[in-house]
């Protein structure tokens, strides 16, 4: 087992461990922090795969954006410091079922995919290529989803402004 493999297993254990802690934590703020570490671990996995661009985007979007928003909304709730009540027994059972079936489903998918051993030579990923691919109109271009997503974001932004706007008092 090479050093690279050891690092992979360390990162994976970190992701899974913090993920389990995020689910089982009794304080909601701690759960958010464990989730944060889990997401950072995934970014580390991308770094390990030498996909720096995706790793950086993962950190910006999830750590800098989503988790900060989650923490903010926790701050605004009343009982953020209190311990949460124990979940009901039935809920535990059903969540166990859900976990089991999801695991089985993913396992099946991965098993049937039949990975062929990828070519070992490292690939060079240029940022300008990503940009070109995003805006290319050829068969494998991403121009349509890119534009659709930007429309979605624009709609979300306008919605935010409408919600935040003060009604005119006359």
């Amino acid at each position, binding site marked *: 087992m090479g*050093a690279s493999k050891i690092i992979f297993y360390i990162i994976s254990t970190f992701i899974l461990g913090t993920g389990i802690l995020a689910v089982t934590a009794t*304080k909601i*703020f*701690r759960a958010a*922090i464990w989730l*944060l570490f889990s997401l*950072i671990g995934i970014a580390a996995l991308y770094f390990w795969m030498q996909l*720096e*661009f995706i*790793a*950086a*985007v993962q*950190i*910006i979007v999830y*750590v*800098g*954006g989503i*988790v*900060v928003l989650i*923490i*903010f909304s926790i*701050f605004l709730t009343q009982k*953020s*410091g209190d311990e949460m009540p124990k979940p009901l027994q039935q809920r535990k059972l059903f969540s166990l079922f859900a976990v089991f079936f999801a695991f089985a489903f993913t396992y099946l998918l991965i098993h049937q995919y039949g990975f062929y051993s990828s070519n070992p030579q490292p690939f060079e*990923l*240029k*940022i*300008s290529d990503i940009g070109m691919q995003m805006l290319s109109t050829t068969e494998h271009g991403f121009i349509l989803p890119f534009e659709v997503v930007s429309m979605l974001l624009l709609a979300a932004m306008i919605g935010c402004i409408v919600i935040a706007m003060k009604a005119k008092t006359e």
Partner: protein
Amino acid sequence: MLSLEGITNFIDEGLNATFNPTIALLCEFAIVGICAITLFATLGLVLVLMERKVAAFMQIRLGPNRVGPMGMFQTAADTLKLVMKEGLTPDGADKFLFNLAPFIVMIAAMLLLAPIAFAKGFQIWDINIGVLYISAISSISVIGILMAGWASNNKYSLLGAMRSGAQIVSYELSAGLSIITIVVLTGSIQLSDIVASQENGWWLFKGHIPVIISFIIFIIAVTAETNRAPFDLAEAESELTAGFHTEYSGMKFALFFLAEYINIFIACAIGATLFLGGWMPFHIGSWHAFNHIMDYIPSSLWFVGKTFFLIFLMMWFRWTFPRLRVDQLLNLEWKYLLPISMFNLLLVTIVAIMGWHF
């Protein structure tokens, strides 16, 4: 001439000649780590002393002048005091997160050091996504601040943390947009490429008006992101009794304090790299004789000089302007800086496409 690049190459070759590559790499890791920590400690000492001296000079005072000649060892004495103090953890605090928070802030500051080019060929990690990496990692440090504020179990800390969060999240936008203007002009987000593109003049002069606007926006946004006056609402002493680090004492407080100054240094180093050419000496277009004379000044001196000039600028802001209110702070970002920087980005794109820069 003795250059830093020569020294690093010498060490690299020496280690590779004596050990096998893995051990040599580990040794280099250790050396880089020790160098980074030493740099941090010295920077903390120097910058705090500089801040106090600059503050004193601007307020017609003398500043620290008792410990050592001209008060040079004042900050060393302060550090010694902080080391000897007890690190209290308040009752009712979330102990684990409370103790973790200063380290997260510090680690984020340390990670930011990696892609900065200190001199010609003297860079820890020339990562190919340089600028993106910097904006990614700098968003981690806000987590440390939020964590500290929440875990302290103190309403002032929580308020400070929330202010800091709102501030950093909003000012990241205009900082990012002003960084993008340089990326548009350079066509690369690797820091070494950005430095290399300024060989015939710094972007601040080559890109004239739009780049000057984005430089001003960058400085304002970066001052806000490092929580410095006039944007120090997060730690406003007079309102929140130091905000998120109210409950911290001893070495944990020192880590927050150090991280603040390290962040200033890093922000200014990035500003110097993007707008003032990093380690690149002052070159003017095709004046080869002039450029050659400028090359005689070592590149590390250029880098340090530019960075400290920007740091001085930020200190100048701090000791001149009064603190903003929260609504003023958000107004400034969302109603002024963000629209201007978006418009400016368009302008820069036009300039870059038409080739109107020098």
